């Protein structure tokens, strides 16, 4: 790829997995820059990253996934990269899928490629409540956008900075379905490419019992706000 690329990795207490992720990334994508957003880890994640000589955005207070990712995206935009890859530090996203993700972005000419667990008939073992939520949001994209996005909550994406600029200022984003809706309504092209996701071996998932109820409501509200925003922007430009 002749464009400048950076991989943004939000990390919170990932001391058991971050080393393997970095080593693997160095092996499979040696020319691609990386920045890890250390979301106020209380374990040895920061020290490990320092020892590895990795670029680190050190957040002095835990901001959560969305805003940690947003910090990394802001850094990438400030440094003028053309393409940003986002992935998790927990080892679930396989570094060897980064080159195919970038290839899919280049070949499709899309503005965002989502590394999808469910497209092309793929399956991924998730708890029933989360699978139901994923299905609901997937069908919602079909209804709202006329294009079905099978994996709306994937954190493994490649995105062009032109598209990133359109969503980076969002205050409460998780960069899931709400950003997909916002981008599609703004006229950006989104495609999915199949990726394999590994089981989490260490640490705790960010999904708690409370999030089973909180996440869908929050996401629906954000999606409605994105639709309202797109409608108002369109009306403003129409005048």
């Amino acid at each position, binding site marked *: 790829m002749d464009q400048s690329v950076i991989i943004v990795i939000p990390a919170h207490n990932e001391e058991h997995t971050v080393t393997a992720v970095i080593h693997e990334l160095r092996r499979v994508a040696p020319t691609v820059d990386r*920045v890890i*957003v250390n979301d106020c880890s209380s374990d040895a994640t920061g020290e490990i990253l320092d020892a590895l000589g990795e*670029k*680190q*955005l*050190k*957040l*002095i*207070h835990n*901001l959560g996934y969305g*805003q940690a990712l*947003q*910090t990394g995206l*802001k*850094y990438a935009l*400030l*440094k003028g990269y053309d393409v940003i890859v986002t992935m998790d530090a927990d080892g679930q996203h396989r570094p060897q899928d980064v080159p195919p993700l970038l290839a899919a972005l280049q070949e499709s000419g899309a503005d965002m490629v989502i590394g999808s667990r469910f497209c092309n008939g793929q399956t991924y073992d998730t708890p029933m409540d989360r699978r139901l939520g994923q299905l609901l949001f997937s069908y919602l994209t079909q209804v709202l956008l006329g294009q079905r996005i099978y994996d709306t909550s994937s954190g493994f994406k490649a995105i062009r900075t032109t598209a990133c600029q359109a969503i980076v200022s969002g*205050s409460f984003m998780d960069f899931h379905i709400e950003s997909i809706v916002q981008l599609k309504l703004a006229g950006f092209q989104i495609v999915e490419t199949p990726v394999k996701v590994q089981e989490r071996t260490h640490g705790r998932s960010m999904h708690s019992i409370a999030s089973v109820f909180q996440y869908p409501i929050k996401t629906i509200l954000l999606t409605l706000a994105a639709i309202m925003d797109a409608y108002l922007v369109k009306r403003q430009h129409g005048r």
Partner: protein
Amino acid sequence: MSIQGILFIDVLGVGFILLILNLVRTKRLHIAYATIWFLAVVGLMMMVSIPPVLAILPRMMGAIYPASAVSLLAFVFIFLVLIFFSMQLTAISARQVEIIQALALRELLAQDTDLQDLRIKLAGAKESENPANPLSQP
């Protein structure tokens, strides 16, 4: 409303105003918020103390008793104030997030600049060590 009721609310109102003044004096309440509470207390006192207002208000709101109309108004006021304070909290937490992000970005961007300066210095040192290098010739 009975005279006792009106007197009770007025005395309570004066007490609230004194409390607000004391909080402002001791810098524990911002003057902007103090204004809102002051207006609310004075509004309530006027509403119950001026008989024509107390007579018109329930009729306008479709309430049978004046006390119901006052309670409904109080509920609306509390609801609006809670939304206002939620907005204030949101603005404060958004500012906090911005500051935390800016700190992290500044630190890394400064490191990047230091690294770039070091690279330029190293390149300069190499050039001065090896002046025969055709690339270093003007």
